[in-house]
Structures are given as structure tokens and as C-alpha cells.
């Protein structure tokens, strides 16, 4: 597909969607509390941009997300590496980590608020818990995916553990790790919002709650669309990082295809 065709598709689909949305509201004569029109949502967006509320709340949520993403990813790399390298740890920790994923974060979040208060720390912690698992699983698979022949070759060449990690394991695991990180980054949005739903006076989750409490559905849409935008930007950034770091992967694929 040519660049121009891509651009046209990128423009046509959102414009068509917004036009369809506006049309539904007009034809069905829907009141704003059921479905606000795109123009009403845009008006509400402008108001919240002008009075600074959207920026303040977005920055709060973003800082919770990024902190959670950093902490969750760091923990996932640490535990992922240990479990990938040690069968004993795998047998001990894996069942706990896997079964912990069955705990709905909305059930755990109120407990975390009671234990740690309702400040920034708890929200970042909830985010990190949500981020942890996809990054962890991909890290373990990535580290384990090092071809045995290469591993044995490195050992036969007397490569140190550090050399094996830097020159073999990290490059092998990087593609899967970054895929997990992309999933984790988008999930961190959910983590931040869940934390803010439980108790907050700032953040986009709080703004959604406020909009619901005031029956201001347009405000709910503004907050939700902003969250989607943040998730999209984070995903795009990580995709760019992935493409830049794994440029050799594309070359490899291309050479295989040739």
C-alpha cells in the first residue's frame, strides 16, 4: 500500500466514524446523557482544555502510569530472568504468579488502598501489578528461546555469564520483551484508572467518576478518549523503539523472504 493510500485511510476512517456518530445522535434524537454528539464532546473537550482540568488530570494519570510501568517492568525482568534460569525458582514461584493473575484488580485495589493509603504510591503499585504479568511472561519465554546450539557454542568459547547475557540472551529476548512491554503499557492505563476509581481527587479515572456523578456524559467521553490517546501514544512510542532497536530483525526477515 502506498504512503498516500495509507494516509487517506487514516483520515477517512475516523472522519467517517465521527460523521456516523453525529448522524446517529441527530436521527435517533438521543439526549446527551445517553450519547453526546461528537460536537458536544468537542465543546466539552475545549472547556476542559481551557480551564486546565484536562491537562492536570492527564498529567496525574500519566505519572502514575509511567511509574507503574517502570516498577512493573523492572520487577518482571528481575523475576523473569531468575525463573528462566532456575528450575527450582520456576517450580516455586510460577504457580503463585500465574494464580495471582486470577485475582481481579478491581477486587485487590480497595485492599491496597486500605494497606497503603490512597496516595500516588498505591495507584502506581496497582499499575505495576497490571503491567507485571505480560512483561514477565514474555521475558521468561524470550530468555528461554535462546537456541541451544548458540548457548553451547558460547560456553565452548568460554564466554562469561555476563557476555552470554549481553551478547546472546538479551538480543534473543528483546523482541518478545518489547511485545510484552507494549501490552503492559496499554494495560497500565487500566491500572491507573482502577486506582483512581477507588479513591482520588485527581486523574482521568477521577474525571470519569465525576462525570458519572454529575450525569455529564460528554465529560466521561472526554476522559475516556484522552485515555485512549495516551495509550495510543505510548504504544506508538514503544513500536518506534522496537523498530529502532530491532532493525536487524527486519533485515533478517527480509533476507529470509528473499
Amino acid at each position, binding site marked *: 500500500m502506498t504512503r498516500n493510500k495509507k494516509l487517506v485511510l487514516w483520515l477517512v476512517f475516523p472522519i467517517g466514524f465521527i460523521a456516523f456518530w453525529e448522524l446517529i445522535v441527530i436521527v435517533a434524537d438521543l439526549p446527551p446523557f445517553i450519547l453526546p454528539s461528537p460536537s458536544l464532546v468537542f465543546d466539552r473537550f475545549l472547556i476542559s482544555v481551557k480551564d486546565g482540568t484536562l491537562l492536570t488530570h492527564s498529567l496525574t494519570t500519566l505519572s502514575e502510569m509511567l511509574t507503574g510501568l517502570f516498577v512493573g517492568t523492572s520487577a518482571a525482568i528481575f523475576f523473569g530472568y531468575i525463573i528462566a534460569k532456575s528450575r527450582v525458582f520456576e517450580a516455586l514461584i510460577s504457580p503463585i504468579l500465574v494464580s495471582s493473575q486470577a485475582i481481579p484488580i478491581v477486587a485487590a485495589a480497595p485492599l491496597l488502598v486500605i494497606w497503603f493509603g*490512597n496516595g500516588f504510591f498505591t495507584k502506581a503499585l496497582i499499575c505495576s501489578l497490571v503491567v507485571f504479568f505480560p512483561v514477565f511472561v514474555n521475558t521468561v519465554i524470550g530468555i528461554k528461546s535462546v537456541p541451544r546450539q548458540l548457548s553451547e557454542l558460547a560456553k565452548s568459547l568460554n564466554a562469561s555469564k555476563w557476555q552470554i547475557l549481553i551478547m546472546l540472551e538479551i538480543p534473543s529476548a528483546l523482541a518478545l520483551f518489547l511485545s510484552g512491554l507494549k501490552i503492559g503499557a496499554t494495560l497500565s492505563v487500566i491500572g491507573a484508572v482502577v486506582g483512581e476509581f477507588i479513591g*482520588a481527587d485527581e486523574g482521568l479515572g*477521577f474525571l470519569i467518576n465525576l462525570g458519572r*456523578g*454529575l450525569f455529564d456524559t460528554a465529560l466521561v467521553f472526554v476522559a475516556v478518549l484522552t485515555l485512549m490517546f495516551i495509550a495510543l501514544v505510548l504504544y506508538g512510542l514503544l513500536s518506534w523503539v522496537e523498530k529502532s532497536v530491532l532493525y536487524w530483525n527486519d533485515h533478517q526477515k527480509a533476507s529470509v523472504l528473499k
Partner: protein
Amino acid sequence: MKHVFTILLVFTLLTSCSPLEISLKKTPEPTIVRLPMGYIPNIQFAPFYVALEKGYFAQNGIELIFDYSFETDGIALVGANQVPFSLASGEQVFLAREQKLPIRYVYTWYRDYPVSLLSTDLSLMSLEELKGKQIALPGLYGASYIGLRALLYSAGLSESDVNLNPIGYTQIESILAGAEQNVIVYSNNEPILLDAQGVEFNQFSVAEYFNMASNGIVTNEHTIETNPELVTRFLNAFRQGIEDTISNPDEAYEISKQYIENLALADEAIQKEILMASISMWQVEPYGSIDRENWANMLEVLVKMELVKSGMTPEEAYTDQFSK
């Protein structure tokens, strides 16, 4: 001749009963009403459980289904005419109407606004002394927030005079952990639970300072216009449930056990105390009647908070045609 007469008689009987009339003579199908409760199953809903168990809703041609969801979601459903009724506190009606939701309050259930400020700081003797203090509350919306604002308003304080800390519904735990000293709670629930834990506190009830329109039944304008007798039937059944609960709380408690999963395992003394505290707030004379002053007070607070800007009057929020 005899046969002819018999045939004529059967023919007359058959033609006199048209299919329409036959169907009308059947027992009419009950109207299914899904009721958003605004909270989890709780002893405070005993009148509904009693009315359902004793068949008052069935006698009024209603099949009642409980829907334990958020208060605002229930009101939105009523506004969208997806359900005919919901439980709601007074301020929600103004807030909803401000956003053009065509809902109206039709029946007062709680006489008093059921929100209180509890303080474990026993030196705090008046609301004015709250200045500069931290107050924890579930969130910056809903009845708790409006109740707090009314308390501050009556003490001549504003929101900026205090430090608000939204903590979700963790007031009891926060007090017990010593994390908070001043919390906003429901008057008929948390004070009893804290008392049972041996915690000493001072209570400042909103109703004592600035009473406002409290919890009751809301419907939408479509139902009022097209099906007013459904409203009457629903409120009749509910009123009978309230009357029976007030006259026989022990029986109401036993009935409620069937509807509240863990009530049989809960501390009966505490739960009965919560029921009695709730009953004391249901003493509306006559049942369901609208207190115009409370509605005017409520609107005054909401206008002051700039949550209502459209210039609506208190009368737009309610109708007393079903509670006279």
C-alpha cells in the same frame, strides 16, 4: 327441535365470548420491574424484602427484580426510560435534571439526610473547628460529598478551608487503622459499626444542621404521563413494606435473611441496630410525602456549589401527586 335449540345455545355462547374477551378474563400478566438499588444487598432495604416476601408487589401486579448497581447508573437508566423506578437521594435528582434527564422524585423514604461527619478527635466540639483539618470521604461526588458541603456551608466554611481526602468506602478501616480522624459516613451504618468496635467519636449529622431532600423513589416523566397507575401500584406495595417493617422489625430482619446472603452469619445485634437506626429515619408523616423546605435547602446548596446553574426551581424535581 331440541337439537336445534342446543346448537343455537352453543353458537350463542361461543360468539358471545370473542377471543379478546377470553384473553381479558385470564389473570393479567404482572409488570416486571427491575429496580436499581444503588448499593449491595443490605438490611436498610428491608421494606422491599418484606413487601416482596409478603406478596405486596404481586398483589399490585408487579414482579420485582432487584438490581444492585450504582445509584447514578440507576438514575441514568430511569432517565433513558430503560427502567421505570430507581432509589435516589435528593441531590441526584437536581444533578440529573441539570443534564436534562427527565426524572422526578415521587416518594420520600428517608425523612433525614442520612449523612454524618464522625470525628475521633474528641476535642472537636463544633463544625467551625474543622477549619484546617483533613476530612476523609468516599469521593468528591454523591450524597457524602453534598452532605459534607452542606455541613461546611452551615458552619460558614468552604471546601478550601479543609483538606479533603477521597478514600473510597474505607472509612471504618481508615479510622481503625488511625489513618483518619474525620470521616464522612452514612448515619445509619458506620456509627453503629464503629461503636461496636469500641471506638469513641463525636457525630455531626447533616440533618441536625441543614436538612435536605433525602433518599426516595424516582421515576421518569414518561411513566408519570403514560402509566401513572404503575407508579401508584409500586408505591402502594412499597408503603406496605415500610409499614410492616416499622411495626415488626424482628419479622423484617428474619425475612431479610433470605435476600442478604451473609446476614445470617453477621452480628445480629449490630445489624438489628442498623435496621432500627434506619427505621428512625423513615418516620415520614404521612408516608412518602414531600417536604418542600428540604428540597429548597438542597437546591440552595447545589446552586452555592455551582453544580446547578440552569435556574431550575425546587418544584421541577418532584411531584406529590402520588404521595398525597
